[in-house]
């Protein structure tokens, strides 16, 4: 199962990069997100999986698609020479980075001290319950901070996207409030 999902994830991610048409990129990105959500289920983080689908695939990507369709742009042909150099460079960089990261993580991983939430315990309490409780106790301040962040982002997006200075109604940036 892991392998299937991993293949979906990697393949879809690759397609995001490789596709010429941004709409396809977005679609493959949704697929990648779904694959990732599957991985999360495997990791027994159901709430995370659902959030992943709900927020990333459901909201963020809709926004993406919305904008992509609204703009409906095609890749223009640009000066190729520079581009090729750039691509080569970027590819090399990426490969090096991946190599480095892989070397770091693929080796023996020393796990730190284990926390209290063993899978059994988690299943007992319910993943969502534990998640919610932590969010509203230990991480309450951060939680409130993110709500402020979202508010700011919402207002910022409205201001930026507004066509006319005042009085014009523009499509509301919906997804930003989703994570509430």
């Amino acid at each position, binding site marked *: 199962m*892991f392998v299937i999902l991993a293949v979906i994830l*990697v393949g879809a*991610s690759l397609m*995001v*990069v490789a596709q010429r048409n*941004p709409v396809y990129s*977005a679609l493959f*990105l949704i697929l*990648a*997100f779904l694959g*990732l959500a599957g*991985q999360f289920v495997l*990791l027994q*983080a159901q709430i*995370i999986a659902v*959030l992943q689908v709900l*927020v*990333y695939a459901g*909201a*963020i990507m809709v*926004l*993406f698609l919305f*904008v992509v369709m*609204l*703009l409906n*742009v095609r*890749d*223009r042909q640009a000066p190729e020479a520079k*581009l090729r150099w*750039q*691509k080569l460079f*970027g590819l090399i960089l*990426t*490969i090096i*980075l*991946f190599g480095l990261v*892989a070397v770091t*993580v693929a080796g023996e991983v020393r*796990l730190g*001290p284990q926390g*209290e*939430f063993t*899978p059994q315990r988690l299943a007992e309490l319910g993943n969502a319950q*534990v*998640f919610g409780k932590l*969010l509203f106790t230990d991480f309450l301040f951060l939680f409130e901070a*993110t709500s402020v962040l*979202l508010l*700011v*982002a*919402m207002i*910022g*997006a*409205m201001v*930026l*996207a507004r066509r006319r200075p005042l009085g014009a109604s523009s499509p509301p*940036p919906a*997804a*930003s409030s989703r*994570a509430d």
Partner: protein
Amino acid sequence: MSFTVPLSWYLVLSAIVFSIGVAGVLLRRNALVIFMCIEIMLSGVNLSFIAFSRFLHSMSGQIFFFFVMTVAAAEVAVGLAIILTIFRSRESVDVDEVNLLRG
């Protein structure tokens, strides 16, 4: 479900996804796609968060995912608004054509 997949697999997968995102950011010129690739990078990181959360028996990773997600949402909202404005003024979302900040 018995758990056999070791942590390092997840980490390698996470690294792969992250690197794909990086590659996308570096290779593509469409601002929208670059944005998507950033989301891919975040996903890669999220995967390792959740994996660690599972293997360390700690909820912190999942909480972190939540915050990453929130930030991503905010970022997308603002980012897309910016892209929209850029497109309106330039009829293009090619990042290589946007260089007003050139020193």
